[in-house]
């Protein structure tokens, strides 16, 4: 075990300076050090997608990234995307369509959905399903999530459902 390393990064637009052990995962750093508990831990081996966050604009599994790797990076979590209103419409569509039950996958699911909608203005259902295929949801069976994302895509491009 080596000693702590100083890192400096932006988290949801705020500058964060911290001293962390090299072995610390980004998700543990966010949850335990910054108390941003909206990012969840489901598998800790990069399969379930519950810990999905944005680093420098790309969605990543924060359980597969070390905190020290985010030195000088910009990290965005569900709290940040909620507070700045970026995904308010998506969240509203999820609420109206009951696209969440227990809600544990939801922050990661929203991150992945917003990533798709930034890449593709009008994804079809198959593309939506494909883009979500790294995010596990045990409750919904996915259909309501696909519906909510489809509705949001339509609304954003001015095509009302």
């Amino acid at each position, binding site marked *: 075990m080596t000693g702590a390393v100083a890192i400096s990064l932006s988290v949801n637009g705020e500058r964060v300076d911290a001293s962390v052990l090299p072995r610390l995962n980004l998700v543990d750093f966010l949850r335990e050090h910054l108390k941003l508990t909206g990012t969840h831990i489901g598998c800790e081996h990069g399969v379930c997608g519950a810990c999905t966050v944005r680093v420098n604009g790309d969605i990543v599994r924060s359980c597969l990234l070390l905190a020290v790797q985010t030195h000088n990076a910009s990290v965005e979590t569900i709290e940040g995307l909620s507070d700045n209103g970026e995904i308010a419409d998506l969240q509203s569509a*999820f609420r109206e369509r009951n696209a969440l039950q227990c*809600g544990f996958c939801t922050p990661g699911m929203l991150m992945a959905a917003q990533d798709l909608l930034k890449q593709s203005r009008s994804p079809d259902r198959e593309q939506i399903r494909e883009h979500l295929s790294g995010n596990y949801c045990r409750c919904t069976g996915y259909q309501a999530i696909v519906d909510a994302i489809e509705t949001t895509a339509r609304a954003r491009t001015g095509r009302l459902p």
Partner: protein
Amino acid sequence: MTSEAENPETLSVLDRPNSYIGRAVPRPNLDRLLQGRGLYVSDIELPRMAHVVFVRSPHAHAKINRIDASAAKQMPGVIAVVSGRELSNVITPWVGVLSHLKGLKSAPQNAIAIDRVCWQGEAIAAVVASSRAQAEDGAELVSVEYEELPVVTDMRTALDPATPVIHASLGDNLAFERIHDAGAVDHAFSEADEMVEAEFVFGRHTGVTLEPRAVVADWNAAEARLTIYQGTQAPHMVQNIAALHLGLRESQVRVVCKDVGGSFGIKVHIYADEMATYALSKLLRRPVKFVADRVESFNTDIHARDHRCKGKIGVKRDGTITAFEIDDLTGIGPYSMYPRTSAIEANQVVNLVGGPYVTRNYRARARVVFQNKNVMCQYRAVGHPIACSVTEGLVDLAAMKIGMDSVEIRRRNLIADDGYPCASPSGLRFEQLSHQAALAKIVRMMDYEALRAEQAALRKRNVHRGIGIASFIEVTNPSAAFYGVGGAKISSQDGVAVRLDPQGSVICQTSITEQGQGSEALTAQIVASVLGVSMDRVRVILGDTDNTPYGGGTWASRGAGIGGEAALQATKVLRKNILDIAAAILQSAPGELDIVNNRVVNVADGAPRIELSELGRIVYFRPDTLPPGIQPELMATRHFVPREYPFAFTNGIQASWLEVDIETGFIKLLKHWVVEDCGTIINPQLVDEQIRGGVVQGIGAALFEKCVYDERGQLTNANMADYLFPMAGEMPDIDVGHVVSPTMESELGAKGAGEAGTAGAAAAVTNAVNDALRPFGTIITEIPLTPQVILTALGRI
């Protein structure tokens, strides 16, 4: 995609202006979860909280000769290393049996193993440290000397005389056996024109809740009270069990359950490591947190469905089914789980086989055996998928044998919708089911004839698609017959308290719990509708043994039917109390007043008389202005338990349309349909989403999910990369329809819907695969239907 109710009329107390009953209103307070502001147990931190990590056995069966924790205790941050023997000074062992399951036996189980481990993953020591990482560092340095013992893994040989007995004190490896014989089975088989037999094999699988099991136990020595924060479906059950085994009174234990990251029955039990965490908190006099990691979850969350069931059906040439017979064998691991026991699933299989059909001739045997694998117990739709797959598989085999269409044989044998009340061959009482209406409806929804035509056309082009149908019955709203009669302190009644606050808001405390199904929503819908207020005025409190009425919680599809009725009855009383006060204030009569849109109005002309906020102000702050002698009571509590029927059975039917790639063995799901009847529908969107989620869990079992053990009892795929489960890309859209037959047991009329999807999905998919493969003359009766299983059946590998 939208659901439709055939019979939308509701009951009088609910059929009020602006009623929320039957409306797809969004669940309250979802923004917390959507914005990452939920409070799951894994999020909870308390002052002086320590973290526990368990050292777990790498062997399926071994003696523990020595545990050396000296190096671990020297590690930074390590507070304590505790063995099973040390912990047994604080917590007593338990035996997972219930008296109504006659003959069920099990051995005493400890919170942490003492002297011997019986499955790979059983905890043998606890390492408590200031952080989880430090506890893991410490656990790596605990040195254990094991002496491996012979393992029992194959349930088929578990009862052989040559097989070692896991618990010598029990005499053999048979945990439970049930034999049932109804009607005249041998005679019925002799009258059949054809008989078909098959052995159905089910893969052992597990719940894979996205949030692993988690608990924070906080023993406050100064208060002599233990607060348990746990993602559980049954807080009062946890309170009872924790108190019992820690030598406390129930009043010394508070169980708090906020957000729960998925449960599905996984979190309705009490696990040894959770018991150990409670005990460690008491021992160390500080809060202790346990969050299972994913490997631990696979090794210790209950598994389910490890069954091999031989089945036999007799059928006449006109399609009449003459009898069913089954012989079910299931392996439950080394202990019967506590406190619900591990005999319930096999018992349910016996109860449910043949349930949708007219024939009364039914013989069954179920045997439950011990083995050195992880424990098995109740998981969503307990026993239903086994019973449904066996029954519906046999019905399809019978239809094939006599050359009858699979819809037609069901039409001829399903109980007629006017044939109720009646009883099943296993003695279950049905109040009112709707198999025939459901069958007719699903045939319309899927356009059955068109699909058959498409199937025939594609077959000529060597494209192999299949249609699978599965009717089912579902156990919901269980009374004390489920657990209470067997001696378990698991409540079958639920309570709701509602009160009107000064500003006209309503606080509602309920003993049912929320794991995402919508307990909070349905409770608020009922309270708002019955009282006459808008839903945003209703705040629902659940999941806290100190602050809710006593009750069972949410499991076995009981929340809406039992907790919902308690909410209805409590709110009726509050409504009456409010109208009595209003009449006194307004010098009117209660019968002339109503509550609509947050205000008291005249029944006759709807004219507003007094706002509830004004009534609240008077009652709480100016009672001196009320007429003499009046003591307002703006809080009401009611409890409910079904008394007439032990269970409110529901029914439904599912259909699957899929394509089998005969070159690769892959299955592509094209469409799935469900028609179900849960009685009064409180929120159609929530019901439909329960069903869709349940279907996908059933599809997981049908196609992907299996805990793969080797012959040494090692679980070889205990991670989310090797254990496959349904992801968005492979799942079909699912159309849901309804038939509505309210139960007359309650004013609400609601039955459950939580098991329906999981109950029949695997049967529908398996029947569809066999339908697709019909040209190849092969029948598959094993799930999961992996490419290997398909290609093997086709003789290609």
